[in-house]
């Protein structure tokens, strides 16, 4: 029992480290012209945690990832931090709900849904910051871009989930 708990803790810690590294590496990639649009590599880890671990474990990884990456980048409590937080929280809720309502939904489906909700969360923050409704004009482009980004992260997360270490620690065993 204690061995299993230690193994789980170590795995979660490694997943958090991976999420932080992916979040940092992503920040080095220049934006494609639409503010706030990223590939979402760190969401691979969040998606894996939402499906394979308990909700409070995956929630802790999400919050810690956003917090630590913002501290590394020097954006803590700035606009991009709140955008990341809002997008991350909304995405987490949507992915968690989808993973619980049906076992037949694939990683890709949940990932694309998460990507859309992440973008919507960021749009809401942008609306609050700028107080101009014109930020909604970016919504169609962001929704379309959610498809390839969600697809990519979903496919990668699906492949990782089949690794033995994930199967050993999955909540579904």
């Amino acid at each position, binding site marked *: 029992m204690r061995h299993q708990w230690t193994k789980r803790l170590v795995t979660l810690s490694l997943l958090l480290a991976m999420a932080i590294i992916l979040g940092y590496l992503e920040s080095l990639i220049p934006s494609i012209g639409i503010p706030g649009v990223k590939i979402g590599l760190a969401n691979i880890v969040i998606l894996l945690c939402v499906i394979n671990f308990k909700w409070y474990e995956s929630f802790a990884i999400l919050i810690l990832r956003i917090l630590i990456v913002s501290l590394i980048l020097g954006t803590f409590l700035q606009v991009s931090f709140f955008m990341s937080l809002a997008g991350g929280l909304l995405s987490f809720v949507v992915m968690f709900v989808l993973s619980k309502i049906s076992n037949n939904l694939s990683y890709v489906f949940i990932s694309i849904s998460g990507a859309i909700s992440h973008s919507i969360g960021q749009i809401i923050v942008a609306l609050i910051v700028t107080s101009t409704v014109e930020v909604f*004009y970016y919504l169609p482009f962001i929704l379309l871009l959610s498809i390839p980004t969600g697809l990519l992260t979903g496919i990668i997360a699906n492949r990782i989930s089949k690794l033995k270490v994930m199967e050993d620690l999955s909540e579904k065993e």
Partner: protein
Amino acid sequence: MINFLKKYLKEIILIGSICLVSLTLLLIFKGKSEDVNATIYVKTDEGTKILEVIDLSKVTNSYEKEIVINGKTVKLEIKHNAIRVIDAPCKHKDCINQGWTSNKNKPIICLDLGYTIVISRADDADVVV
């Protein structure tokens, strides 16, 4: 092919729905050829206000212009029916990376400095939340 469609039916429906919604929104938000004004909105402590309105249709030669937003200088380049940001003191430079805009579907937004540049028709009502 049929097996592929059956296996990934939910994903195909989701992607199709997203495409449909996006295209619908694009049609709704579609800019018109009469979009000629660049309106610069700035978020201040007193709320959002219009800093400046530039009639892009009257521009014949391109020129550069500096505006001061919340104490910081932003440099714009303006040409006939288009505008872009060429220098700004924000951290991410998203506004610069957005490039030229000549269409209301592509407002220039800077969250760090709190300004938005929107292309609109000459007779559009200002929409400020």
